[in-house]
């Protein structure tokens, strides 16, 4: 096998023109840097600007601004809205991650059932994953409507109480969770199913021969083997939870009051509706810290290797 240098020499000799040789040598840089520069421009630069803006009183209404140190953060810390909103954020993120992963795992196990037509069933379960978030939001808004919605109609048939789902502070976040789980459970299931079928059959059989019950085999062999997949699936869902937007903005509009407003929606409201960009940016800094802490804790707490 020729070394990299020899290959380069041969390639250059054959490729002829000087431009080609130059391009050949710098191929990797030519291939990677445009993407890197584009990403820096649309993500890193705005990120740094947001951090900087968090320390100003920048405001779209009166666009004269100056640095005000930590004033935004002090105001945020003392605002009576802040703690309920942070509570909502974690309620949504953790509720979504735990429920979607647990039920997704159950669905993944069911998807492994061998019978005629299972491929069609698996495909049908993909449909909510492919549905635009905004469609999910408006459809569930219709389903949860307290007068013309289907959910209360069926509850009525069963003589169960018919709550005003979207108007009750205690029900607003559960409504958001239910509508989002409709797509999140199949999503987790599809990924977990792919992990599930990589577990070697021999391992499970060996445990069965040793007299372990099916449940114990699943818990001690299958799940242990799936740890890397479970870790990634949980991590992605946590990150996704912090991003959740249209399922809240269109479904409950964050209400009633701020009963279902997480930090992401509050940043949107503060910055783009009330135009207090400096204050919104300070909230953004807090949001990034919360995501970083959550991801860090996940890395520390959850086992990653099988």
């Amino acid at each position, binding site marked *: 096998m020729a070394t990299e240098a020899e290959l380069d020499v041969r390639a250059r000799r054959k490729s002829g023109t000087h431009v080609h040789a130059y391009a050949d040598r710098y191929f990797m840089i030519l291939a990677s840097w445009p993407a890197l520069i584009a*990403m820096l421009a649309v993500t890193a630069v705005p990120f740094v600007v947001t951090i900087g803006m968090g320390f100003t009183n920048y405001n779209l209404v009166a666009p004269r601004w100056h640095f005000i140190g930590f004033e935004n953060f002090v105001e945020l810390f003392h605002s009576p809205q802040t703690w309920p909103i942070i509570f909502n954020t974690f309620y949504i993120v953790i509720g979504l991650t735990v429920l979607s992963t647990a039920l997704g795992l159950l669905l993944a196990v069911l998807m492994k059932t061998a019978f005629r037509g299972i491929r069609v069933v698996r495909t049908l*379960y993909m449909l909510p994953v492919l549905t635009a978030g905004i469609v999910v939001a*408006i459809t569930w808004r219709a389903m949860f409507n307290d007068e013309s919605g289907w959910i209360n109609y069926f509850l009525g048939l069963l003589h169960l109480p018919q709550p005003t789902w979207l108007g009750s502070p205690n029900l607003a976040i559960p409504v958001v969770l239910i509508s989002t789980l409709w797509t999140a459970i199949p999503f987790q299931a599809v990924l977990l199913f792919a992990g599930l079928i990589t577990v070697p059959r021999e391992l499970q059989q060996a445990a069965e021969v040793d007299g372990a019950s099916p449940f114990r085999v699943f818990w001690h062999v299958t799940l242990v083997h799936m740890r890397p997949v479970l870790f990634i699936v949980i991590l992605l869902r946590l990150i996704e939870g912090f991003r959740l*937007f249209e399922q809240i903005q*269109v479904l409950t509009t964050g209400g009633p009051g701020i009963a279902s407003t997480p930090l*992401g929606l509050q940043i949107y409201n503060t910055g783009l509706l009330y135009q207090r960009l400096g204050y919104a940016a300070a909230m953004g800094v807090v949001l990034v810290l919360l995501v*970083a802490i959550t*991801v860090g804790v996940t890395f520390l707490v959850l086992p990653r290797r099988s």
Partner: protein
Amino acid sequence: MRRRRSGILALRILLLLIGLVLIGIPFLWIVLTAFKQPVVADASPPVFISPLTLDNFRTLFQDGYAHSLLNSVIITTLATGSTLLFGIPAGYAFARGKFRGRGFFGAFLLFSRMVPPVIYIVPLFLFFHLLNLIGSFTGLTLAYLTGLLPFTVWMSASYFQGVPVELEEAARVDGCNRFKAFFRIVLPLALPGVVSVGLLIGIAAWSEYFIPLILGGFSTEPATVGIVDFVGVDGSSWGPMAAGALCLIVPVFLATLLAQRSLLDGLTAGALKG
């Protein structure tokens, strides 16, 4: 023993079917409501059966929804095309190799996946205001890169890793330079992966709501934003809304049906190798 086995099988199938019903109910609502007469669609308590009509689609298209759908097609094409153009070569470079800035690149990919888009959007809004890009297709395409590009680099890198280096080396011994080796050998071999990445980001771009809500303009508003116009305060135009939702989901389902295999593979590969 045998009877117990078949009992478990029946239970599993039953649970799967119950799940399918729960998955199906919102879709059933969309399809039924889209073809109901407007009065019936808003009735409370709900009326399930109504004479079929295309009235809702007529209302929708009189309100300029066709234009919104066209905008969706334009934005999806532009965003998917430019993301692939930047992202596929970068994915290859990332999979193969050693180049200046690789470590930084990798860390940055992870980081940009972690940060919620609401963090980027306010500064982008200000930049675009200065550059006169608010409401332009150029601005929207640039903004869509924030989410799509890191995903594309990450996913396509995992496909390029699956192409044996030996094939490439053989091609270069035979006189191909890196460009030729990439376009004639590596890219065709990784093509199924590239197609599924393209489909996934295409669907993501088609479904995007947050970015065009803030950076879009009246003439570039995609269907995801246009449909919200039908959400009244009292929620009283369910018919056109369901019809609009149907227009948004049918193209995606059709595309998926055509490329079912590669899409499923793509979705899972991204998580397992990423």
